[in-house]
């Protein structure tokens, strides 16, 4: 009984880890997209110097 419960809890933990990583990656991508890539003039102008200085393509 104990031997079967170990892999189950291990895979549940792995699933939780993957879910957490997915949420973190999505959030991270959104933030980098907003500051580095988004086209709207307002976002571009606010992040302009950062885009240039971190060598994102700009203009």
């Amino acid at each position, binding site marked *: 009984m104990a031997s079967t419960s170990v892999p189950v809890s291990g895979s549940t933990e792995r699933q*939780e*880890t*993957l*879910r*957490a*990583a*997915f*949420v*973190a*990656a999505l*959030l*991270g*991508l*959104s*933030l*980098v997209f*907003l*500051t*580095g*890539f988004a086209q709207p*003039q*307002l976002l*571009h*102008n*606010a*992040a*302009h*110097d*950062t*885009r*240039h*200085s*971190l*060598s*994102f*393509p*700009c*203009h």
Partner: protein
Amino acid sequence: MLARILSVGLLAGLVAGLLVAVLQQVTTTPLIVAAEVFETKAADQPAATAQTVHDHGTHEHGTHEHGGHDEGWKPADGLPRLFYTSLATIVTAVGMALLMLAAMVVTGEEIDDRRALAWAVAGFVAFGLAPAAGLAPELPGSAAADLVARQIWWAATGCATAIALWMFFKSEKAILRALAFAVLLAPHVIGAPQPHELESRVPAELAAQFTALSLVVQASLWVLVGIAIGLLWPRLVRRPAT
């Protein structure tokens, strides 16, 4: 796990972003401001563009317009500009930290100070050095091809290089390492979108100085994010619910 990733990512990004915001203020921002003077001057008097790379009998500009740089709201020079640039740098740093943490967690990498720093250096190679080989970091007013095409090439090159580095370092098989090398080279064989005319409005000395400094600033951001993650991750252990 999610709470730990988010808190480490936020804190690491905040610290690294703040430090790099200070660095930008004394390195890249003065060059951007200086370049804008040439850009504005050149836009006002297109015939007297003494700073262009080469003379054109008929000076045509418009192929690389500045994307409406003077249109709409933008932060005023001085404190507002410093504030928004610092904010954007911190937000970018938080995003980078979260992406790095997510990648390390998914690949099952143990997160400690040395490994986090190694991943950060790889992050800079992938998203700093490799895209710069095709698209040199540029000042406002430099000649450039279509923006979206450059953004796609930049992002694809960064991702391809990151995958290639991971394959190379994590695989023992020669065939996979050879494949990693091919993936690494592919974006450069395809080639980055280049401007039709090599016509810049900023002096070459300023542009060269900016390219080098911009790579240093980006390297500093990656390394600081890596150090901060390596320091914070072991200290922010989720406490068992009792």
